[in-house]
């Protein structure tokens, strides 16, 4: 089976080392997917997907609608169980882990259609993410023992500091559902960061943003990587963002990676232009 899979994805030379940035070379990849595939009723939604991400790498996944990008996120976070293949996080297989456990292991994500806790405040949203780092026992909290106060104070402070990254401290007590659209997207990223990830998956973070906001987002993505020293994998349709911020770009079509390389390589790859960019120009 693997051999046939390999043939089908002949466009990608698997033997070539993944394009891990120089600074990350020599470490184990933080996230590795090998021959990842899933079928829905016989349809191969994702087929032989391979990736190896450096610890502080920013990479992008592009591809037409329905190419299977979000499905890959769902596979990486164990929302779907893959039909084939393995996902290694820091060398540890995530098979059989629940979505929450995968998150605790270090993969955090945002959603294409924003999924915030709308009836909670902005700070509470972030605090849910910090739940991974909080340790008080239920009875400590219920009886309001000193441990509770200490922890709440500490994480209240940490939540506000996290909000500062996107200048959102002032929104701390606002209901998340009442935030303007752009701020909702930012909050989702912050909530994901609060869970203490090693890899951050962003599903169309620039969707619905104007050029100015996209530019700001681009800076923010780099800022997050620099400050938190984590890897970021993003799905995006906005080419300016992908080309501007990603060090490696993979192009997905019909569930398969058809090309992989630096933004420059991708932009000049005739297959990509034909399969993806070309199509978009016609549209």
């Amino acid at each position: 089976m693997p051999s046939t899979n390999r043939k089908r994805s002949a466009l990608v030379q698997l033997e070539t080392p993944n394009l891990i940035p120089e600074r990350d070379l020599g470490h184990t990849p933080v996230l590795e997917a090998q021959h990842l595939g899933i079928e829905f009723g016989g349809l191969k939604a994702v087929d032989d997907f391979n990736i190896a991400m450096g610890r502080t790498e920013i990479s992008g996944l592009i591809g037409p609608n329905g190419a299977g990008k979000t499905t890959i996120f769902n596979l990486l976070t164990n929302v779907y169980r893959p039909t084939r293949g393995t996902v290694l996080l820091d060398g540890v297989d995530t098979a059989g882990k629940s979505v929450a456990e995968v998150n605790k292991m270090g993969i955090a994500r945002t959603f294409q259609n924003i999924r915030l806790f709308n009836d909670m405040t902005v700070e509470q949203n972030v605090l849910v993410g910090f739940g991974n780092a909080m340790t008080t026992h239920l009875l400590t909290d219920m009886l309001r023992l000193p441990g509770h106060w200490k922890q709440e104070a500490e994480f209240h402070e940490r939540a506000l500091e996290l909000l500062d990254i996107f200048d959102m401290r002032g929104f701390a007590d606002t209901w998340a559902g009442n935030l303007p659209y752009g701020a909702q997207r930012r909050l989702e990223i912050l909530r994901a960061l609060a869970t203490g990830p090693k890899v951050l998956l962003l599903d169309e973070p620039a969707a619905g943003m104007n050029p100015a906001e996209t530019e700001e987002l681009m800076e923010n993505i780099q800022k997050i990587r620099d400050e938190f020293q984590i890897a970021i994998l993003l799905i995006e349709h906005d080419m300016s963002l992908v080309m501007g911020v990603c060090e490696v770009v993979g192009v997905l079509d019909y569930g398969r990676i058809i090309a992989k390389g630096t933004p420059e390589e991708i932009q000049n790859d005739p297959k990509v232009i034909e399969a993806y960019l070309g199509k978009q120009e016609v549209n």
Partner: protein
Amino acid sequence: MDTQNADARPVISARASSASASGTRKTLPMPVRYAINAVLVLIFLVVGELMIDGGVITRYQSTVLEQVGIYIILAVSLNIATGYLGQLPLGHAGFMSVGGYGCAIFLTRMMPVLGLTARDFVTGSPVCVFLLIGGLLVGGVCAAICGIIIGIPALRLKGDYLAIITLAFSEIIRVVMLNIDAVVGFKLTGGAAGLTGIPGYTNFLNVFITVVVVCFLIHTMMKSRHGRAILAIRDNEIAAEASGVNTTYYKTLAFVVSAFFAGVAGGLYAGCIGVMQPAVFGFMKSIEILVMVVLGGMGSMLGSVISATFLTILPEALRAFSEYRMIVYAVVLILVMIFRPQGLLGSYDFSLSRIIERVMNRDFPWKKKQTVRAEEVSADA
């Protein structure tokens, strides 16, 4: 329009700076907040006790007050599963009955062992106080165990299926209580005739204290990481899971805590009524409690407390119209769902200290207009 073309950032930083101004806003330190609430509770308690002792409140009226307290516990505990977790369990009466039977059987079996009589409970000897606390805990634990047994399979299911499986479980509990004596071969629950000879240990004082303790514990749980996880599941289960919330654990937790307190309420109920009959704890009892929660506002503890109080006192006050009571219940339930689905109070929760803080900061509702406008601006951006 101008703000839209400009970078979104200035607007946000403007908000941030205005907020940093409100960051210096005066707040009450935690101990003061607790002191305020404690004083409030004490006043309530002392006034109540004085009125009962002074004969202002008759024996019958104080029994009604005890029932009010019991229904408050039932409503706030169901609110955990319904309002906070966002599920619809229809078997709360089942937990209540398990707790009631558990507590009553424990106490009636322990009394001869410790050489106590029903009178001792009325006079309130220290042994009885401890025994009663033990009994209520036994009732709560019995109900919580049922909660785990029910919760683990039930919580794998969503919405309607969960509703129906909890209904099924509570019906099974009822049938078991009815027929268990024939199986075990000795008198345990007393079957259809009911369990009698339960000492009248429930009084205004211990109901009131229990209500306060239960409300406090639920409040503190909800205002902690555990409570936030539960609320997160209600708001968006998929996002909660992706944020590291162990949804199975927290759903079960909410369910079990809800069952535990229902069991405690059942224990008080047994002492208040003096007889436990399985027929009382049918589907209709579960619905009655659900109505209280829904009417008060799902997710609002104060709402549950008010509507439980109101819906317990009202029928007693209108005994002459008791035939219409259920119909009125039904119509009110339908109308509330159509016209105010979030319940009378929504998810609003009353906090005296918050009001005091507002007064301290001169932050009155009629001064709110400016802030709203600022929000509109930022929403445009």
